[in-house]
């Protein structure tokens, strides 16, 4: 008797379980619209600070030197209305993976600035992966220059 009662319940739960899994769809309201941010390069704020920080191959963690540079940005960032962080990679490894890696690098910088008190809503990140190198060669020195996050204040 007990078995006949629990079995349908089990199936029902199993069925619900399945449907929730497949109906895991994305609704538009979950996202922040970022269309239409046109950075006007003329509005860029000139600072005396280093405008980029560097990374190791296939890494997104910040070195002590990077953290030191970013700390100097905190007061400037608070005055700016927008902070753009552009993540880049060297040419090694695959392009789509590097696109994701560039974004991880920009996020690391963003998170560091947030912890230091910069408002998260002011920070816009974008990754170009390995698509926009500053140095086109294939030496260690070229690669070092290309693994970077560029910081611009507006």
């Amino acid at each position, binding site marked *: 008797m007990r078995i006949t009662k629990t079995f349908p319940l089990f199936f029902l739960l199993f069925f619900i379980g399945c449907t929730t*899994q*497949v*109906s*895991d*769809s*994305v609704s*538009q309201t979950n*996202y*922040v*619209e*970022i*269309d239409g*941010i*046109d*950075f006007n390069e003329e509005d860029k704020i000139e600072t005396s600070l280093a405008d980029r920080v560097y990374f190791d*191959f*296939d890494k997104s963690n910040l070195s002590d030197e990077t953290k030191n540079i970013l700390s100097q940005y905190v007061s400037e960032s608070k005055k700016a209305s927008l902070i753009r962080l552009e993540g880049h990679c060297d*040419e*090694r*490894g*695959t*392009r*789509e*993976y590097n*696109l*994701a*890696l560039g*974004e*991880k690098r*920009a*996020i690391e910088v*963003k998170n560091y600035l947030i912890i230091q008190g910069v408002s998260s809503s002011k920070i816009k*990140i*974008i*990754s*170009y*992966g390995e*698509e*926009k190198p500053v140095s*086109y*060669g*294939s030496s260690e020195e070229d690669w070092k220059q290309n693994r970077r996050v560029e910081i611009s204040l507006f």
Partner: protein
Amino acid sequence: MKRFLIIAIFLMTFNSEARLKIEIAKGTEQLQKIAIVPFNSNINSQFEYQVRNLINEKLTLFGEFESLDLSQMLSFPFNEANFFVRDWELLSIDYVIFGEITETDESLEINYVVSDINLKRIMLRGDISGLKKDIELIVKKISDRVYESITGLKGIFNTKLAYILNPEPDNYSICISDIDGNNEEVLFSSNSPLMSPDWSPDGKKLAYVSFEKGFAEIYIQNLLTGVRETIPTLGMSKSAPVWSPDSKSIAFVISMSGNPDLYNYNLKTKKISRLTSHYGIDTEPAWSPDSKKLLFTSNRSGSPQIFEIKLSNKRIKRVTLEGSYNSRSRFFPDGRNIVFVHGNNGVFHIATRNLKERFINIVTETKLDESPTISPNGHIIIYSAKKDDQGYLAGITLDRKSKFELPVKIGSVREPAWSPFLN
């Protein structure tokens, strides 16, 4: 004895825009010898040599055959009655292709025969007709049939390549051309990067990533009308689109707050479902031929490795175990073998692997190889490589007997994507 052939094939450029051309870097060690006899025409017109030369160009395109020079032929048969096997045995020819053209004002009909000299057997008798203005297509179809009768593999002469051209910094174009680089068309140009071209299974649309709006967005472009659409979802960054072989959906990547995960866009219902959910990087999806599972690259285990996800239960298993960098995989049409980028000590090669076996085969020798794409007959891999600060395309037949390059004159070319078979 090793024989290295350095042959540059200067293709007839009907289209002055064409910038790619195939150069054979290394021919097969034991090339099969073919002879293509000039076709006999009912009226002595330009077509008899043109047809012969075009078929010759196609069949020798990837360095798989050595073609007998006209001057060495002992006879010029055009039907089975005047074809004598011994004329070709004397020259150690493996296959002879000959035939006749019957022309009217606007159309032509071509009867052609493929003879296997070693087996002393007619392999194929073909008959094709069409308008004279479609001569290129007719020749591609004949070449496909002849190639198939000789190799047992479906011909790929009527397929196309999509690729990204980057002639100078801040100048990007997405192009398609015939596989020999002829008939290049520019689909879209931008001063922001373009990435990741992928063909729809019917060959009528191309999906790709463009940064034209200041962030990575996926566009689906109709090749005939030029109309472009996006995937109807907001998101910070969308990338790596790949069409499912059953045409039902496009798998792609959305990154929210720096966390890229795999999603699937149902083209019929326009619904988007999430496939993976991990704080690490999940990207570079690739469909299995049965559209039931996807390979993808993830760094969830520390370094980039290839994983597989089953669509039915979203179960994930790791595929690559060897080496510190394995990524951007694609299935072979057989569904049993994969091709991917294998990195070791800062050097990146194209590798293949049978999913049932553990060992991998490294198939390229240059140091920065990426973006492998497989011919629809599963026989040839074309990939991106780099030398002298220039990106170029290179190719290899899977038996590793033939290698070729498709360089550009100016700037770089990269991310080749081979079309499906086209009609």
